[in-house]
């Protein structure tokens, strides 16, 4: 790999930065789309469910690569303006992965027990309050592991942007290969780069998952010290004997 000069390394490292940016922006857009479309697909109005369902089917059924090329090259022909490649890529990736994510949101929301919603009705909450205070906080821990998968898919999916000439890792690799004429070392390094990024994402999402589960009283509490102190105590309290009439009667 000695033939790869510092300048060429610089191209690859800049590519890493672009890939990270693409991932973050697309994930942000994708999350917004996932929640909006996912919740719309559980809406009580049929027309809302139909429109959001159509969105999901449309984006699930089209190739992200072709869509990206289409957004960048075909849309300008009809509309007369062109997005910069970076934003065309973010738009395509966000809308596509958001469609996959909407299925995650829909499933997790549907999995919240009906009794939780009924308790919300009994306490007089409006539908929006039930969603915000009861349903989403309980659905969220169920969403994190599949969102982690999607996020990694998205990270690797960003490689598609090299066709638009966005200087991500993959595009950098093509440049470096063209400059050195050597594929094996360049693409080996690039594989490792993607793996490291994906691994870091997974670790971060594990943390998110643990916090989310603690938020609904599953798994350890988010503050390790407090958990160590009160854990065994609480468990003892929860034993049936503590539930005798006690002070109640």
């Amino acid at each position, binding site marked *: 790999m000695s033939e790869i000069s510092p300048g060429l390394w610089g191209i690859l490292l800049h590519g890493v930065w672009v890939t990270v940016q693409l991932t973050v922006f697309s994930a942000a857009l994708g999350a917004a789309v996932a929640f909006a479309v996912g919740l719309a697909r559980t809406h009580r109005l049929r027309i809302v469910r139909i429109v959001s369902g159509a969105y999901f089917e449309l984006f699930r059924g089209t190739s992200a690569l072709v869509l990206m090329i289409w957004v960048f090259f075909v849309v300008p022909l009809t509309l007369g303006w062109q997005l910069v490649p970076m934003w065309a890529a973010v738009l395509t990736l966000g809308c596509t992965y958001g469609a996959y994510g909407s299925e995650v949101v829909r499933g997790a929301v549907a999995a919240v*027990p009906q*009794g*939780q919603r*009924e*308790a919300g*009705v*009994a*306490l*007089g*909450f*409006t539908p929006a*309050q039930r969603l915000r*205070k*009861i349903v989403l*906080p*309980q659905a969220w821990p169920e969403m994190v592991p599949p969102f982690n998968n999607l996020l990694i898919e998205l990270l690797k999916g960003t490689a598609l942007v090299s066709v638009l000439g966005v200087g991500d890792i993959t595009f950098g690799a093509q440049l470096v290969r063209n400059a050195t004429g050597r594929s094996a070392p360049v693409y080996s390094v690039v594989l490792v780069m993607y793996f490291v990024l994906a691994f870091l994402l997974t670790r971060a999402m594990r943390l998110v998952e643990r916090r989310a589960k603690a*938020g*609904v*009283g*599953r798994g350890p509490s988010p503050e390790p010290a407090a958990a160590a102190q009160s854990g065994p105590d*609480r*468990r003892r*309290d*929860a*034993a*049936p004997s*503590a*539930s*005798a*009439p*006690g*002070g*109640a*009667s």
Partner: protein
Amino acid sequence: MPADTALPNPAGAAPAGGRELIRLDQVTKRFGGTTVLDRLDFTVDPGKHVTLIGPSGSGKTTILRLLMTLTKPDEGTITVDGEQLFPASEKERREARKKIGMVFQQFNLFPNMTVLRNITEAPVTVLGLSRDEAEVRARELLDLVGLADKCDARPTQLSGGQQQRVAIARALAMRPRVLLLDEVTSALDPELVAGVLDLLRDIARSTDITMLCVTHEMNFARDISDQVLMFDAGRVIESGPPEKLFGDPEQERTREFLSAVL
């Protein structure tokens, strides 16, 4: 309504003037082809404790769910404290619903909130209490149900009996005029049932809250009820004070049912 006029003392026995708190008029509810409630009429006076008994599938729980607006009647009107629940707009229903609280068989505490928050959230969000006021009220109620030390616990850290007592406190925090109790001890381990029933006896004795109760605990029903309604196939086939209904039922069907469950 031949079956109803045959009753010596129609449920609630409200005078025609209508000071009754709950009124069901000709309520019919069907699920698919099955008629769960068949042109049901009954009324409950303020402060009364009414227990609904009968075989499963006879429509008892459906009445509670109708009153909580968790399901809609196919026909008929339902009124609570002069406000119509059905037919009514969603907004009117939300107002009327504030007068009604419900405790569920499966507790349905919110696992994403602490015990205290379970109790304070609705008073703050729905009734507009300040968080401080709501917490004072919640702590009083937790004291009443014997769980003052569990404020910061999560529902998952409590036993079933404790969870149900928190659920009762949560319902009472809304200061409802009517409390609906839907088989509240059916999901509990046998040794936890007494604690919850004692608490409810206490509440029945010490408050003027109107209770509508579906239960299989006949001793409890006998203790707290002013009136017991025997349901069968979506109709009230017999009603009366507990001594009469448990001691000397008139209908053969009631006798059969009681001998099977007592």
